[in-house]
């Protein structure tokens, strides 16, 4: 829903795509997915990212608004994909949870949330009436202070420490990993396919690299394998290990 709203509000991302299932502008693809006219399983997000990186390199122009928009939309697509992936497990876990029950739970949450939203409205009224009132903010004159200010109770060094972070230049946001991610996703897919061919089955923990970003790339690669129908993913409990098993038979050995 949120992706839909921003697709309307923000500037279009001028990116022509040439994918297996779709040929045309990126925005149109997103719209079609949101309208359920294209199955998101059919769309390879890594391909879209790779194309965008190439597009940026080709045009030599970096439009911050359009790129932010692109990142938001790609994130929305990934979120939809990962939700769909989890749905299988959730259904297994709550087999009894029929649509009516799900709707009831959602209703409960909405009702609870709306109480707070309405309470915020009443707070606003109180704020408008009282917030501007003037109270005295003056120190007690020294002669009336029994608890005297202790000389040197605080070290002056804490002042320098407090100011230092503000004097440090804010870091320039590093976006280089965006391009790296697209490249390493392709590499990671290749690596996982090789393991899958050899072993037939493996676990996420066994193959995932150490770094956080690297693990994320491995995870996205798993999603790709799943969406392309090459592998089946199983996770028996939340945050448990993921078992990946091959679906398609290995190519027949000829001769």
């Amino acid at each position: 829903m949120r992706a839909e709203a921003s697709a309307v509000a923000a500037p279009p991302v001028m990116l022509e795509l040439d994918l297996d299932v779709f040929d045309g502008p990126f925005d149109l693809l997103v719209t079609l997915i949101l309208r359920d006219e294209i199955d998101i399983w059919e769309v390879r997000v890594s391909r879209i990212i790779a194309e965008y990186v190439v597009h940026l390199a080709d045009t030599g122009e970096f439009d911050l608004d359009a790129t932010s928009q692109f990142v938001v939309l790609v994130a929305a697509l990934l979120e939809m994909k990962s939700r769909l992936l989890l749905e299988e497990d959730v259904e297994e876990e709550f087999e009894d949870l029929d649509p009516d029950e799900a709707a009831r739970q959602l209703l409960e949450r909405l009702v609870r949330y709306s109480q707070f939203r309405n309470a915020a409205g009443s707070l606003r009224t109180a704020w408008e009436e009282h917030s501007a009132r003037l109270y005295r903010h003056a120190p007690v004159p020294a002669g009336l202070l029994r608890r005297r200010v202790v000389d040197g109770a605080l070290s002056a060094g804490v002042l320098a420490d407090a100011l230092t972070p503000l004097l440090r230049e804010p870091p320039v946001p590093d976006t280089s990993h965006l391009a790296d991610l697209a490249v390493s996703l392709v590499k990671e897919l290749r690596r996982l396919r090789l393991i899958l061919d050899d072993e037939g089955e493996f676990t996420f923990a066994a193959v995932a690299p150490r770094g956080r970003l690297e693990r994320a790339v491995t995870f996205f690669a798993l999603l790709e394998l799943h969406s392309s129908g090459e592998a089946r993913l199983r996770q028996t409990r939340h945050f448990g290990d993921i078992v990946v098993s091959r679906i398609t038979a290995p190519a027949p050995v000829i001769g």
Partner: protein
Amino acid sequence: MHPLARRLEALLFISSRPIAADRLAEACACTDEEGADALQALRTEYATGVHGIEIRDVAGGVTFAVADDCAEDVRRFTGAEKPDELTPALLETLAVVAYLEPVTRAEIAEVRGVSSEYALGALEERGLVEQQGRADTPGAPVLYGTGERFLRLFGLTSRNELPPLEEFSLGADEVDEIRSRLHANAERRAQ
């Protein structure tokens, strides 16, 4: 003026924070009853419209504040600005904290359905929300609550004065409408 009332007046003048009635009596070394009588005399003296300052009951105590009809002059003279407006997101987060405190960041996010990190930071910076220790649960998350400044800026004596949350429940019609919309969605998905 009542001699004890004069002493209370001096205390209220000097303190930047509202003073609870029992602390007033303690500071004047008098009984609670004597203190209550003196406070009543002071309230009569500072009844609305008599002086340029008034007695206010806020944040669990009594304090002096500038009379509303004199506030504009004072503001012009001191250059004091009105506190910055609170956006709907800040007010909503503040409502969750005020009604559920002590409350963790995760609990706030669950009620609101969105991460409330920025809103909490902004409320802390404005002194409306403060960290009040850590929960006894795994990860020991920080607990947030409101403080004296919250009560003062919203004109409350205590959090008990907040209207009960049930008052803000949706009407039966609205609940029915949401319910039927959710059911329609669920059916469509089940097909």
